[in-house]
């Protein structure tokens, strides 16, 4: 299946292992991580990870992320650039 670009915004647990779990998941499912930034969450516990990743579809990507106990919530924006990229592929 063709991979397209997704921007994911995830809230992850305040645990040294949490970020590794996310990145390790992307690697073993064969999703290419394009860029990532992590910072504190406003008000709430946890940290905010925003990343751009190439994956076959957003639903499967989010479902896999959701299996991680350290991912509190996650949503994806499939960018126009991503769609354009997929269309030209």
């Amino acid at each position: 299946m063709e991979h397209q670009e997704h921007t994911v915004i995830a809230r992850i647990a305040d645990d040294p292992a949490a970020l590794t779990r996310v990145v390790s998941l992307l690697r073993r499912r064969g999703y290419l991580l394009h860029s990532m930034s992590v910072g504190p969450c406003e008000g709430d516990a946890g940290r905010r990870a925003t990343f751009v990743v190439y994956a076959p579809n957003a639903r499967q990507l989010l479902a896999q992320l959701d299996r991680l106990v350290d991912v509190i919530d996650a949503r994806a924006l499939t960018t126009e650039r991503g769609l354009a990229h997929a269309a030209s592929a």
Partner: protein
Amino acid sequence: MGMEGGAGGPITGARILCEALVREGVDVLFGIPGGAIMPFYHALPEYPSLRHVLCRHEQGAGHAAEGYARVSGRVGVCVATSGPGSTNLVTPLANAWMDSTPIVAITGQVSSAVLGTDAFQETDIVGITMPVTKHSFLVKAAADIPGAVRAAFHLASTGRNGPVLIDITKDALQARVVPDWDKPLRLPGYTAERRVDDAAVAAAARVLDEAERPLILAGAGVIAAGAHAELRRLAEHTGIPVITTLHGKGAFPEDHPLSLGMAGMHGWVHVNRAIQACDALLNIGGRFDDRVTGKAAAFAPNARIVHIDIDPAEVGKVVRTDVAVVADARDALTALLPRVASRDRSTWRAHIAELRATHEPRQSYRVRPDTAAMMPHDVYAAFDAIARRRGHYRVITDVGQHQMWAAQLLEWREPRVHITSGGAGTMGFSVPAALGAAIACPDETIWVICGDGGFQMTNQEIATLVQENVANVKIAIINNGYLGMVRQWQQLFEGRRYSGTPLSAPDFCLLAEAYGVSAQRVERANDIEAAIERAWDTDGCVVIDFVVEREANVFPIVPQGSSIGEMLTHASATDPVTS
């Protein structure tokens, strides 16, 4: 081992860990001590309700915990020390991960003061096991032990079950604190319960109602959810025939008129043909493993697919799905049952019966090849007859040809009787898993059916059986002197180049006797029945070395990567039977 602190006073992390396990209802631990986990072993004798079974290898401890969990439905627990003790648990964790088995692994870790310094026997086991655990905890303070244990058991045994690791530093086990047992469980990123979506159930019912040629595919999720009674009601109400995965064996009684048998790489021809012909497929608790689907793009090409699964990530992962019900299988079937119509499906069933009648004579697996050598099939036929008469047994199989013959040639009627390593395909699973199963079910006879290859990987756990006075494990080795399934592939697909598959072995009878269990070698078909009967009646573990035809094959077989419609049914077939 004086009573420290007294009620309400500070106690060591090790005692807190023991107390936490007691609170979770744990009655047995499979493990091996070592430096980092020693404080836990020091506290253990103070908790006589926690039976410790000393295994001979941590892999055995892990598989024993799996065997215990699989037959009982309860969480299995294994214990190891840091470094190699913990890395030896990686295979059972991976196995439990692939087969969604609820186990908790507890590992000792070096003291927090030296963590991250490459200390003696320091291994990043949390990092190593991330891809094969549902979750893991690194606990560096005694006060965090109650919460970690509570969370680990909750995670292992709810939702889609799976393995959880708790890695605890030595100083956390030694420190004394007053445990807080009342801290609420906080897992904001975890959803244990999924409510059945009414609209999805209605859509699923519509697909089934409209179908002329529907099939039910029952997977491990039916057994995990205890939904076999609901499945049976659904099948009988709708008249829809039932096929199973390997792990679905026992989800539906195979002596039922609606039972068709196993699907996939070693499924029956008529089952795979029915999949290719059906117009609706209801998959309950199966994950469309490639051993089931063959070439996924060509799987069930005419069917609308309804998938009931507790894990949303399984929906649409491999096979396109028309309707998904993300829920526990029993909850979903309970909701579905009153909404789906009873219909006459006799024409469809007659069509499948015709397929069965057409193809069965061509399937050499049913026909005993004309050979003087004892065939594996002879062993299974005798075992099936005796087991049916005696009852009260479980069968733990290993991985390979013997495993597929057991799935094909024995009749499975009850859940949690057929236990095997499916997703990971872990040779060496069976003997230690039988140890765990035997302790969980002391009043039943636990049969191991394994190959000579797998047996040589983990048979040292027979010493554990003896030390623990376990008397109800009987081991049948289907001994063909090869890594048989690989040899079969080499025969069928690689021009008989038997590279790395001929396998020597010690005298298994002498080996068994060295361990202190009785043994028998069987080389003639006429002696099979008496050997099985004798083993069943023996008060003690038994090893039977069945020396069988060396080049017997498992048929049918779908070549890897092919559509399940393309099956080889005998070795000389130059043209696969295509649908």
